[in-house]
């Protein structure tokens, strides 16, 4: 407990780098004709929800989560662009490299957000503001897209600083200014407090963070349990969570998984198999990148009526081989006896441990290991899908332009399981 308590009180210097309308910015950067225009990125042609709107579109009131009809009603001139996940993840990975020049403690929180603990390194670069400015400059130089950097004494305040500084901003909430900033701030502007919690708080007469921080902790505890204590601290700008570096987080990993909401429901066995190969490949790659192996493969299937079922297959020995993961997923398909239209597929590997380097006896296994290693290298250098399976080429190529919806929890590095949404 002692170390945990210290975390609460110990002040850090944390940066939150948040890309401004990330997907939309990347699209506008890639296609000059979209620049300066209201655009909205949608997950795929088969789906109709706005993932990100450009600032031009936001001016008309277009928001994330609207469907295309609502978006068009708000802004008749809006241009819909189908997202390109590979491009976003590649950009994100390149950005991580920039961050790592300033500190090893980088937590890539999501595809467009990262936390950097620069407590000990900012002096080398001339202070927090200098680091923030340099990062903004480097991102601008490399990708020509804007980002906002927030600085705070913990993750929560850094995130708030960046939220308040958007777009293209650099905002530092100094420790001594925290109370002043929080006092009039509506509670739901605080990261981690959702609409439902805000509604409950409002019924208790708590509307602002200042009121939240001053409310008796016991009252909040009665209403929300342990979470009550957390939000009480949050109301005072405290958060007992340190930046969790996404590199080297292999120790506590329990499982590695990917799931995808398909661009359109599928019924054909061949389609299911192609998606499974793709997911197995993503999972295998991530497992290998972190030097891990797992013994249990779990397949998750969500039908069009949202009924969700899963089946797990335990192998004789742990593996990180895409083929083995894929074959196990196929076996699970067999056991599940899938019927009906499939909306979402997920593949995960659990019972994960370090790859302890057991070598293969058979030539073909060794060759496949080498092949996967070579594919990983090519894909790391030239982006996902640069080297892939022919079967995916045919199928996925057609679907590339309408690739599945990327989960907001997707992380380019790190092995944490991506939860089903």
């Amino acid at each position, binding site marked *: 407990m002692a170390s945990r308590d210290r975390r609460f009180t110990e002040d850090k210097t944390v940066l939150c780098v948040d890309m401004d309308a990330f997907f939309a910015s990347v699209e506008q950067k890639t296609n000059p004709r979209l620049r300066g225009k209201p655009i909205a990125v949608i997950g795929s042609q088969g789906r109709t929800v706005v993932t990100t709107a450009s600032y031009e579109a936001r001016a008309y009131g277009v928001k994330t989560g609207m469907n295309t009809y609502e978006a068009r009603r708000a802004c008749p001139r809006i241009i819909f662009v189908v997202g390109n996940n590979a491009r976003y993840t590649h950009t994100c990975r390149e950005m991580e490299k920039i961050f790592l020049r300033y500190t090893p403690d980088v937590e890539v929180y999501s595809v467009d957000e990262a936390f950097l603990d620069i407590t000990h390194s900012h002096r080398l670069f001339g202070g927090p503001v200098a680091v923030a400015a340099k990062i903004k400059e480097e991102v601008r130089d490399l990708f020509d897209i804007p980002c906002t950097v927030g600085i705070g004494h913990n993750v929560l305040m850094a995130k708030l600083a960046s939220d308040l500084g958007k777009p293209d901003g650099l905002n530092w909430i100094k420790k001594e200014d925290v109370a002043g900033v929080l006092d009039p701030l509506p509670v739901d502007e605080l990261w981690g407090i959702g609409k439902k919690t805000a509604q409950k708080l409002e019924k208790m007469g708590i509307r602002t963070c200042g009121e939240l921080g001053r409310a008796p902790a016991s009252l909040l505890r009665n209403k929300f349990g342990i979470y009550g204590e957390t939000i009480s601290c949050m109301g005072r700008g405290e958060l007992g969570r340190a930046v969790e570096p996404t590199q080297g987080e292999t120790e506590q990993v329990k499982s590695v998984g990917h799931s995808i909401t398909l661009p359109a429901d599928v019924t054909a066995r061949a389609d299911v198999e192609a998606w499974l190969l793709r997911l197995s490949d993503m999972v295998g790659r991530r497992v290998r990148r972190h030097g891990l192996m797992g013994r249990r493969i779990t397949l998750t299937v969500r039908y069009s009526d949202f009924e969700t079922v899963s089946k797990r297959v335990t192998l*004789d*020995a742990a593996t990180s081989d895409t083929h083995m993961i894929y074959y196990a997923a196929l076996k699970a398909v067999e056991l599940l006896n899938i019927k009906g239209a499939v909306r979402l597929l997920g593949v995960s590997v659990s019972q994960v441990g370090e790859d302890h*380097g*057991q070598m*293969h006896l058979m030539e073909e296994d060794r060759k496949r290991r080498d092949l996967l290693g070579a594919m990983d290298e090519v894909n790391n250098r030239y982006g996902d899908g640069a080297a892939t399976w022919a079967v995916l080429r045919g199928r996925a190529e057609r679907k590339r332009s309408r690739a599945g919806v990327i989960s907001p929890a997707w992380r380019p590095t790190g092995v944490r399981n991506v939860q089903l949404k």
Partner: protein
Amino acid sequence: MKLTVTRDELLGRLSNIQNVVEKRNTMPVLSHFLLDARSDGSRITATDIETGIREPLEAAVATEGVLCIPARKLFEIVKELEGDISLESEDAQWLQVSSGKSSFRLACLAPEEFPSWPEMEEAVEVKLKPDVLEALVERTLYSAGESDTRYTLNGLLFHIEGKRLIVVGTDGHRMALMESELEAAAPEELKVIVPRKTASEVRKFLSSEEDVSVHIGKNHILFKVADVEFLARLIEGTYPNYHQVIPEKNDKLVTMDREAVIKALKRVSIMSRERSNAVKLDLEAGLIKLTSTNPDLGEANDEVAVTYDGEALSAGFNARYLLDVLQAMGTESVRFELHDQLSPTLLKEDGNENYRCVVMPMRI
């Protein structure tokens, strides 16, 4: 159907089939066995589709008949009964089981639902001593896969070439191979994959003196052990080329005491990392040093005296794999044949070329 049978006869026969009948509830009929009562000889048949077992039942049959009886339930009932047992069918639905003052009514299935015993296609017959077959299975099965997605590995390869029978098991990390001489040469070369479960079940019936007769067909293999018949559907597919895997250039030959190295491996692997079982072997003249380290726990060191005067070599191994091999071996001293730390290691009993095990090292 009406018959009387001694408790021991029925219990023994039912016990034989318990592992074959299907426990999962996928097809109810597979958790039943077929009793075919004839005055000229009664028979019990059980199957899980992959493996079938057929055996006689010594019984006094008053009325002939066929019935499909729940295997597990009748076994449990017979276990608790004393004295002779009478089985009487009321119709195709109900079986009356009685002994002394105890009686049971057991729900049965129509015999037509029971899968028919497959016709054995044209087959090659070989005869084996029961102890030879037992050794062939016992000393290779531990190396075979269990739930590998490469399903051919979940069985044993039976390779017959002239007068030689070679049985091979591998899971892709290690391989065990045992050779035996047949009394008569087979007319053609044969390579078949016998499911793990069949091999494991047959093993339990090899205590008799009589030769085992093995009939190998295109799709099935039949083992006749005394009065029990085992029939299995062979695993289709191509088994890995095991010749390729056996190292031939291994020049570092080490002889050591089997018990001593087993004990040292068991001690040292206590400190191995969970799941990996990694143990490092440092070979030098006259000595093998065994080490394991676990960053969370600490480390272990041990030494075993060996006969060796070549150059030093270090290699990592899964201690489990080495122990499985060493425990399957029977001689006092064993031979390790190594090449380098990335190549497969060959293990043999000292003075026996018929049993060879290959273990792939771990990267260290």
